[in-house]
């Protein structure tokens, strides 16, 4: 992993008094999809901006595609693609022009960007809207166009900051499929996301960030095994009948209290559910399910994702 596309040691980012990233080590391997998970303000976007060479680091070392962003920013940016959190398409240009002109910013020839734009329109399923204005496109279409735009320079590394936030389920699934195609072509991807299902779907490996630090690292399966256990029992009680954590703890490995529910972590959900029942506790509803990344997240950051 020594010469992966992104390598960071002790990476920090300060904005005045506030330290957004407080010393993180990151190694992204060639061809993998690497995820940054974390609540708002965890430092994900600051990290992404440093990798994208649009935000100078405050401390530590950083190598992107083997080069130092402080010294070789434009050279690195020529070889990466960036999908920002908010679409920043050029509303004064058509769909096709958005791709062609953007390609010209990279110094690509007129002929080359023309051909590339046609390919990318196909990839983004926007060929029929090629000569339309950008404004009337749906959210999903704009997002696909932004992703297509990020590919105009045939990047070796693609940075996606919350690629599917605000999209409906169909649009998300279509985007995931496109990202999977890119992975199969060998494009290394770094993704930040709020969505655990997205991380499980897309990421080969991920880190969980909280308060500017990396609090866990691994494949989705490893993280679930290590931090959440196998199964979860979700119990909902009427407020006046809600038992204390101490009453529940003897029956399971660990208890997590949420505002509306109690989560019991255990290796055997059915058994735990019966144990709770035998103890005379009467939940309004009970659900046994497999642990997910969401549970890992809750445990590590002590809060739900949607905050």
């Amino acid at each position, binding site marked *: 992993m020594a010469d992966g596309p992104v390598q960071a040691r002790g990476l920090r980012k300060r904005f005045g008094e506030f330290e957004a990233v407080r010393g993180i080590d990151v190694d992204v391997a060639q061809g993998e999809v690497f995820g940054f998970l974390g609540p708002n303000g965890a430092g994900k976007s600051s990290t992404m*901006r440093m990798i994208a060479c649009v935000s100078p680091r405050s401390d530590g070392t950083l190598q992107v595609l083997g080069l130092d962003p402080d010294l070789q920013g*434009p050279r690195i940016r*020529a070889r990466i693609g960036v999908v*920002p959190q908010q679409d920043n398409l*050029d509303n004064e240009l058509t769909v096709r*022009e958005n791709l062609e002109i953007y390609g010209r910013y990279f*110094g690509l020839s007129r002929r080359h960007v023309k051909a590339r734009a046609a390919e990318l329109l196909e990839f983004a399923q926007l060929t029929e809207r090629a000569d339309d204005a950008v404004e009337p496109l749906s959210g999903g279409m704009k997002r696909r166009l932004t992703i297509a735009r990020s590919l105009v320079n045939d990047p070796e590394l693609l940075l996606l900051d919350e690629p599917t936030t605000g999209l409906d389920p169909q649009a998300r699934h279509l985007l995931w499929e496109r990202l999977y195609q890119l992975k199969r072509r060998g494009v290394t991807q770094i993704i930040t996301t709020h969505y655990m299902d997205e991380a499980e779907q897309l990421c080969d490996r991920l880190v969980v960030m909280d308060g500017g630090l990396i609090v866990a690292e691994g494949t989705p399966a490893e993280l679930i095994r290590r931090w959440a256990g196998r199964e979860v029992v979700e119990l909902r009680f009427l407020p006046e009948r809600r038992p204390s954590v101490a009453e529940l703890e003897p029956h399971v490995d660990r208890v997590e209290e949420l505002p509306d529910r109690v989560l019991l972590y255990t290796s055997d959900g059915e058994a735990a559910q019966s144990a709770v029942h035998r103890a005379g506790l009467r939940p309004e509803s009970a659900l046994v399910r497999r642990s997910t990344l969401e549970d890992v997240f809750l445990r590590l950051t002590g809060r739900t994702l949607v905050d």
Partner: protein
Amino acid sequence: MTLADPPRLPVLVRLLPAGSYAGRSRMLLLRSATAARRTWLVILSGFAEPVFYLIAMGAGLGSLVGSLPGPDGVPISYAAFIAPGLLAASAMNGAVFDSTFNVFFKLRHSKLYDAMLATPLGPVDIALGEIGWALLRGGLYASGFLTVMAVAGLLTSPWALLALPAALLVAFAFAAVGMAATSFMRSWQDFDLVTLAVLPMFLFATTFFPLSVYPRWLQLVVECLPLFHAVELMRGLTTGVVHLGLLGHLAYFVVMALIGLAVAGRRLGALLLR
């Protein structure tokens, strides 16, 4: 796939912070020209304003005023007096509008410059490209207005041909300073300050009447204003009263352009590359 290496850059450019200039600001011109293809009517309307002023003031008010002393004291018609003033003012207005309102929108709302900085382009490419576009537009308006002046018989000297490049320099300087000022603005309210700076200059910097109407102390104030120097420059050229003093006016705009450009490039970098 071939990615062109950035072109070799001149010495002056290498003094800028690393990565702030890729030598590709003409791609921003390409972008603006492409966008302008759909808004040509708006752009064309920029021609009309100074022409309307010329008709209303020059022909209308001029019939009451008669003639005024020209730069060398020889009387000229009121229309011939204000036409170079309007030429200078339209160079200023066009450049200021483009480099303040339009740039602010792209900077704060559409995040267009953020998108550009994700490519090898740097803040200096953006500053130069946007100012260059304001300049092209200003040049277009100036040539249009000069044509109107020629047709109306208000150009009395071949020196008037130089009024076009002079108008471009004036536009460049105003655009550079406008962009620098925009980088300090926080909200749309701040743009009232732009109007507050531009409108009095338009009215009082000898566009419509000679400097001699002011008391001496006010003359000194007016002589410091950039539009005053632009008007002097244009009036000298279009009436053919050319003297070395015009070089002083030119120098004023060269300095103004360089300061504006340096501040704009630096500030854009500070705002966008945080």
